[in-house]
């Protein structure tokens, strides 16, 4: 029995990745991820020079909502509200960051980029490749991305040009929403190697005492353990339509959650919030929980159960239904009550 996973031609020691964000923003964190036996690390997203302002972060930038101080990260219902932006150095710093990561790491390193101009996408993706990254992820779905960039125009062009310009695998990270399957199909059609589903949502919260939006007065990224339920749905929807592999991300707190993603067709799973609130050893704990499940079920690898739950999915027409009419009678007595 082993957690060894094949993904985009890479052999990984675990299907569990560190997702792009504050846990992949400096070289020392790569060492921590490796010690914990993460499968790979997706580095913090670097923005093109046009979005230079996104290299500076507001303070404070995180608020844990509905956070129960007594049970802290053991809770299954908090939200991490955040207004974090892109990688905080220049692009030169980022290229150097990738080079140093690659020099010291034995696990695969995936670069992550954001731009709008097709030429910037192309240049940045080529640099990521030249610096030795094992793959590049296009972060086209950040909850903080400017509203002027749209999937149909900017991002389709980006996927096309990047796929043509690099030899390393290209992952496309999509946001949640009703258009996700369509976007997966487009990404596949234009040659993406995999999709990452899904980025966090754009959310909002208000302080009723001051009657103002919390933190800085603008929408923020929102996610938490509860977020897995919509990403699980999106992974299931996508897995039935596309052939390229899926990297699930959202709300994973335990090995159980990873297994759910795999049962619905994901090949790998990216985690972040759980590392932030429960520490780096969450990775090895999750690995151990998956191993324990495999042993209990007498399985050799997760590959044996990938997509298995999809086979048991049904359609609305085939759902067995029973009439509730006789039992609804007591509540439907308006005639008796003269309410006709």
């Amino acid at each position, binding site marked *: 029995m082993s957690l060894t996973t094949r993904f985009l031609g890479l052999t990984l020691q675990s299907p569990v990745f560190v997702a792009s964000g*504050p*846990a992949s923003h400096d070289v020392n964190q790569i060492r921590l991820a490796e010690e914990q036996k993460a499968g790979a690390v997706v580095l913090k997203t670097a923005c093109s020079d*046009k*979005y*230079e*302002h*996104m290299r*500076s*972060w*507001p*303070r*404070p*930038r*995180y*608020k*844990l909502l509905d*956070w129960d*101080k007594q049970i*802290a990260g053991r809770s299954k219902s908090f939200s991490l509200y955040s207004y974090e932006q892109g990688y905080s150095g220049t692009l030169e710093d980022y290229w150097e960051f990738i080079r140093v990561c690659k020099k010291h790491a034995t696990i695969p390193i995936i670069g992550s980029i954001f731009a709008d101009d097709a030429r910037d996408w192309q240049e940045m993706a080529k640099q990521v490749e030249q610096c030795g990254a094992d793959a590049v992820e296009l972060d086209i779905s950040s909850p903080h991305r*400017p*509203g*002027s960039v749209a999937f149909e125009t900017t991002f389709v062009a980006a996927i096309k040009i990047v796929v043509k310009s690099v030899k390393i695998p290209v992952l496309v990270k999509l946001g949640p929403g009703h258009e996700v399957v369509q976007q997966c199909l487009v990404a596949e059609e234009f040659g993406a190697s995999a999709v990452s589903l899904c980025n966090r949502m*754009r959310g909002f919260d208000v*302080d009723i*005492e*001051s009657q*103002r939006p*919390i*933190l*800085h007065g*603008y*929408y923020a990224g929102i996610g938490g353990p509860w977020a897995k339920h919509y990403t699980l749905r999106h992974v299931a929807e996508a897995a039935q339509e596309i052939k390229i592999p899926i990297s699930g991300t959202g709300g994973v707190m335990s090995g159980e959650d990873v297994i759910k993603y795999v049962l619905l067709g994901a090949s790998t799973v990216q985690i972040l919030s759980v590392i*932030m*609130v429960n*520490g780096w050893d969450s990775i090895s704990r999750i690995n151990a929980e998956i191993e324990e499940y495999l042993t209990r079920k007498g399985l050799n690898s997760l590959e044996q159960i990938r997509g298995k739950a999809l086979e048991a999915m049904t359609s609305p027409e085939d759902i067995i239904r029973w009439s509730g009419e006789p039992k609804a009678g007591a509540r439907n007595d308006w005639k008796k009550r003269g309410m006709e």
Partner: protein
Amino acid sequence: MGNEQTKYPGLPPLPPPFVKEFPPIAVVVEEKCIACDRCPPLCFFDAIIMENRPEHKYKRTAVVVPENCTGCGLCFEACPVDAFLWTPDKTAGSGPLRAAQETDKDMDV
């Protein structure tokens, strides 16, 4: 309001008033700290250490290392007695930056 939830509210919902002039960093009010050890692990930037204080009621206290503090706000949520406050980091070099000064003005989705 007087309900349980607001007793130890954690991070204030709004940034401190001085945020336009100085970047905020966290600081521990040592007299309040009960040395419960909850905040160092929640700080993702290794900016909180526990220090010995022989004269302190609990003999120890949490201390924020200003050089490491990114002003993120997580530690406020760890503390059962709300011992965290914002303080201006007057040593920080650069002035405040505003987003989209001349680039993308259309930030609505």
